[in-house]
């Protein structure tokens, strides 16, 4: 099953990965080959098999709804690339200006 360069570019945006032209060329070939390989599952009749997302038969696991200690602001920000001491700083969501 062949993916087009456009398919791969679209997936790149969904995956939030900036891809160079060389990346796109290489990945179009590699992903086509891998998708072709995994497509062998089509030959199996799975009509009677329910999807198994998780190997355990556990149901929802709840804990008591009680406050307990969590990370401090300092701990949460200790490896943050840009912050102002209380918030994460990111470039503008809307418009071009105000990149932090």
């Amino acid at each position, binding site marked *: 099953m062949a*993916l087009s360069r456009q*398919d*791969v*570019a*679209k*997936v*790149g*945006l*969904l*995956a*939030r*990965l*900036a*891809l*160079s*032209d060389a*990346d*796109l060329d290489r*990945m179009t070939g*590699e*992903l086509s*080959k*891998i*998708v072709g*390989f*995994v*497509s*062998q*599952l*089509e030959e*199996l009749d*799975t009509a009677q*098999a*329910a*999807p*198994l*997302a*998780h*190997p*355990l038969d*556990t149901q929802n*696991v709840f*804990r008591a709804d009680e406050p307990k200690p969590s*990370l401090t602001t300092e*701990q*949460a920000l*200790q*490896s*943050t*690339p*840009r912050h102002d001491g209380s918030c*994460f700083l*990111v*470039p*503008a*969501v*809307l*418009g*071009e200006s105000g*990149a932090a």
Partner: protein
Amino acid sequence: MQLLELSAVDLVTAIRRGEVSAVQAAEAFLDRITKLDGSINAFLHVDRTAALARAADVDKRRREGKPLGPLAGLPVAVKDALCTSDQPTTCASKMLAGYRPPYDAHVVARLRQADAVLVGKTNMDEFAMGGSNENSAFGAVHNPWDLARAPGGSSGGSAACVAADMAPVAIGSDTGGSIRQPAGLCGITGLKPTYGRISRRGLVAFASSLDQIGPMARSAADCALVMETIAGHDPGDATSLADDVPRYTDLLEKPLTGLRIGRVPEHFGPGLDPEVAHGVEEAFAAFKAAGATIHDVELPHAKYGIATYYLVAPCEASSNLARYDGAHYGHRAESGSGHRSAAKAGGEFESPLVEMYCRSRAEGFGPEVKRRIMLGTYALSAGYYEAFYAKALRVRRLIRQDYLDAFAKVDLIGGPVSPTPAFPLGEKTSDPLAMYLVDMYTVGTNLAGIGGISFPCGFTKGGLPIGFQLQGPALSEPLLLRAADRYQQLTDWHSKRPPLPA
């Protein structure tokens, strides 16, 4: 040298009795790391000062007669996928270069509580994605048995450091074979426990329904010792099992008389190296001589394991790795990095924020991680979800049912760990699909959520270790460890050492 060759069980006993101090033990292994790791590259970080301080504290408390934990003074190496609050945790990725987690992984906390001495963080394939350790952003690991060959992966550093006597035990993680395959290729013993047996809290997530932490050591008995500390329920991991943790080390001695071991004829088909096949058949013969019976069993959907795994794992990975966005922690691209968006006509990003995300991730992740994120994103995207992800989950059900059916007839299933012995560095790096096939005998264990152990069962004529794998039903760790230990009482493959300087 003798100190380095002691089993973990014997070393812990010697330290408790005062025959060896914890500082002596730590120094011996740290000196060995200093001497050898330049040529092996098993470690990404070694904290000699902290390890020696920790060991000195164990010695002090022992002298004062204070209570000590069950692993007191035991040097332990930890895969760099587990969070350590006092050492960097990088997952061998540029994305996390220099990252300091704000907390310890549950397993790391348990090791510290047991008074183990953490000597360092081991090299791995980036984000545990790979079967050769060549996907590390910080250089490949070299197999101690032949430095020109790969140690396997993704826990290649953990396997190599134990094989080279740089640590008596190491912690690995196994999503599709990442403990068992490198253990097999490096001639050591590695246990992939049942899904949920060990808490995953603080293990950097790759594929959350498959990931499992486990011990790697020179013998099954040493793995059993470590399991007693790291296994068990953790309220911080909703998927961790509440079942009691057995005293694994007390359950090793019962003979194997009457044990039924399954043998899957398809495992011996084309693609299996003849020397590996021979070593594995010899191991079956040894189990038979020890009182076990061997029975052919079918795993009819095993041949679809790789295709199923390479949909399920990348789908989960694409979701898990979405957290690396350049905003919260990890690598952040500065603007104007030279990448342009290929996704939108005209090369424009829809906002400066999206540009930052896309560039940070493009710069931080290596090629295999990107490939898997792309594959998973594709297989989960509108129009393809049913055909790929949901289909793979249905086949996963069939694969698990195969194991349930087989374990109605046999107690364990034996076979090869990987189709070949350790392969030369660089041999498979240009062909992702060829690299995926090294997991063909191991991915089923993870898809089914059951247990597996690998241990050495011979050597090729060229002197490379051959691994044997046993798989068992959920929570069969006592039996897996006992079967491997009984085998190791009858053979000495696990005590062979690679040709390294003394």
